[in-house]
Each structure stands twice: as structure tokens, then as C-alpha cells.
């Protein structure tokens, strides 16, 4: 059975989350260089966004045959 075709996404929609994660990653990488203590903590939080996104996606994976 074919589901009704979903409307195509714009480039902006497809890359919205990837862009957020990329900016967060780069900001984390650079902030970590600027000092110890708070900047390091900020770096960990910002950089952890990428692994966190993978965990969330894994939690929502589609296992069943549909």
C-alpha cells in the first residue's frame, strides 16, 4: 500500500536540524579553546548535542514492518 505522497521539503527544512547541530558543534569546539572552567562546560554541552540527537533518533526508530 502506498501512503499518500508527502509534500517535498524545501532545502531550508531539510537542513534546519543539521544546521543547528553544526553550529552547536563548531561553537562548542571553539568555546572550549577559550579557557578552562565555564567555557569547557559550555563546550561539553554544545558538543553533546550531536550524540544526543543520535540517541533521540534511535529512540524513535521504526522497527516494525509497516
Amino acid at each position, binding site marked *: 500500500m502506498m501512503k499518500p*505522497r*508527502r*509534500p*517535498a*521539503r524545501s*532545502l531550508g527544512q*531539510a*537542513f*534546519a*536540524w*543539521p544546521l543547528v*547541530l*553544526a*553550529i552547536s*558543534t*563548531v561553537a562548542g*569546539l571553539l568555546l*572550549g*579553546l*577559550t*579557557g*578552562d572552567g565555564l*567555557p*569547557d562546560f559550555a*563546550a*561539553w554541552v554544545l*558538543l*553533546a548535542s*550531536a*550524540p544526543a*540527537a*543520535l540517541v*533521540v*533518533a*534511535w529512540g*524513535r*526508530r*521504526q*522497527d*516494525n*514492518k*509497516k
Partner: protein
Amino acid sequence: MKSAAIRRWYIVHKWSSLIPTLFLLMLCVTGLPLIFHDEIDVLAGEDYEARLAGIPSAEGGVPLDTMLSRALADRPREVPLFMAFSPDSPLLTITTGPSPDAPGSAMTLLFFDRASGTPLGPAPTGGFMDFILQLHTDVFLGLPGMLLLGAMGLLFVVALVSGAVLYAPFMRRLDFGTLRLGRSKRTGWLDQHNLLGIVALAWMLVIGLTGAINAFADPLTDNWRNTELAAMTSAYAGAAPLSPDRYGSLDMAMAAAQAALPGRSPQFIAFPGGSYSSAHHYAVFFQGDTPLTQHLLTPALIDAQTGALTDARAMPPINQALMMSKPLHFGDYAGLPLKIIWAALTLATVWILWTGVLLWLRRRPGAVERRVAEIASGASGELA
């Protein structure tokens, strides 16, 4: 995106990935233990820094001339090549070799406690971590090996960019984070490859680019020595190289260097005739004086015979990029949590490489158009 364009990007992605895949897998596997080299050194009992107490060697202690004479007493008939300082502990290292331009393989690295002046013996070498580091840096092939891995790093960057371009048509009708693991294996691999790839994209780009810059470290340093450094020391251009028995006081040289660049912490001294200095100078490399610039080294060139300052000038932008590339590649600048994230993203990279290999190996027969259609449809029309 037109299918002709998808086809072109697909071909670029396929070859720029397939060629470096085995190298990249090796780099990931060897990179994992290297991320934790500090922690592994502590476990192996090779962490001298933690055992020594007293004033950091970058700030003071026994005079440098005394430390050097102790090193040369241990290595008679050799000449000094480098002296390196620690900003955190009294650990001082002195590198010697048979001649001023000795290759790395002929050098000996000696450890000292500068607070007490005690020799700690030669640096431990030849261990497991040294083996891993060599494999990761140049696959035991020296400069050609470094350049080979650098080229693989650049291909990796091309693969990342082309992969990100192909992500757009693939995801046209899919939600971000889609993982269809209940359909065909191939759909599952495609979704995992796309999701992991796009999520780790920025980190992989940084690691790939900084790794490639590091691979070109030797030519970049040679270029600095032959251009910028040659210009700074042009007054000495015609003079014969200074012979080691005429080297003057290191402590006087350090004082002159610190007068030129006050308030900064010295990281190492390069002796005349090596890769990091002219044939007539002590090059004293200082760290920047803010956290952001502490990785950016500035050399003060001191006439090795007279101890007088010749020049102190920041390195050119490409060499500054090289210095910033090191922490960004190693991930060792913000504590253990950063290293754990580094390891997690390295494992993600391994999985991206592996699913990429599977997608290529287990492709069904048929022209490239089949793969193009798969990308254009987000694998939605696929029959399991």
C-alpha cells in the same frame, strides 16, 4: 535536484569515500586510544608531570645552562637540539642528537626535574602508544606517509561535502532523524549512514581538515624557515653555521627573549641548525598570553653566540592555522568529557564508514541510475 546532478555528486561521493576508507578506518581505530593518551600514560606509570612537585619548568628552577650541561654529560659527543618546558610541573625535556640537523629517528629525549636539577633518564619509547601514534601519523613511512594520509584526509573532506549535498534529495520527503530499521537491510543502512553522517558532519569536517593540515606540518615548517625566518635573519645569510662549541649562555638568551616578549610562558627552545631555527640562533617559542592564544607560538630569535635579540615576530597565518589545528584535532583541551564525546563521534565515524562499505558491497547489480533513483526517492520506492 536534477537526476544528472545527483548522479555527478553520487560519483564524487563514491570515489572520494572508497579510496580513503581503509585509511580512515585505521585512523579511527588508532585515534581512539590516542584521545586518551594522558589517561593511559598515568595508568602505565609514565606520567612524570604528576609526580614532580615544585616551580613549573617554564617559570624557573635550576639555571638552563646547568640543566643543559647535565644533559650533554649524559650524551657525550652529541649536540643539543631542543629544550622544552612545562607550564604545570618542573618537568624539563632536552633533545640531543649527533648533529644540529639530525633526523627525528636519531634524536634522544631526556627528562629532567628542573626544580631539583635531577635527571630522570631518557623518555620511555617504543611502547604500544608510540606504535599507535606512528601508525596514525605516517604509517611508518615518514614524510611520504604523512603526505599520503594528508591526501586521504582531503579526500575525506570531499566525501563529507558530497555526502551532505546528497543528503538533500534523499531527505526530501523524510523527517530529520528517520531510521527505518524494519524494512530492507539496505534502507536501514542508508538511513543510518545519512543520519550519522549529517549529525557528525561538522565534527568530521573539523577533524578531517585539521588532520590534513597536521599532515602537512613538515613542509609548512620548512616553508616558514626558508621564507619568514630567512628574512628575519637575513643579516646572517652568508655566515657559516655556528658550531655547537661556540653556543653562548641559554639563560642570557632566555632573559633577552623574555624582555622582547614579556609576560609569556616559554614552550621550547630550538637550537641552531634544526627545523625550527636558523643556523645561528636560539629560537625561543612562547605561548600566547590568553587562553585562546596559548596554542599560538611566537618565536624570539636570539643570536646563539652573543645572546642578543635579532627579531621576534608572529608566525604567518598558515603556520598559525597549523598550531590551532593540533588541539582541535586531538580534542585534549577541555577535560575528560570532551574526550568522551570525541570517542563517541569517532565510533559514529566508524559506523558511517562501515555502512558506506556495506552499501557499496551489497549493491544490487544495475547501472548507477538505480543508486541515483534510490537517493532521489529517499529509498521510499524500494521493495524489501
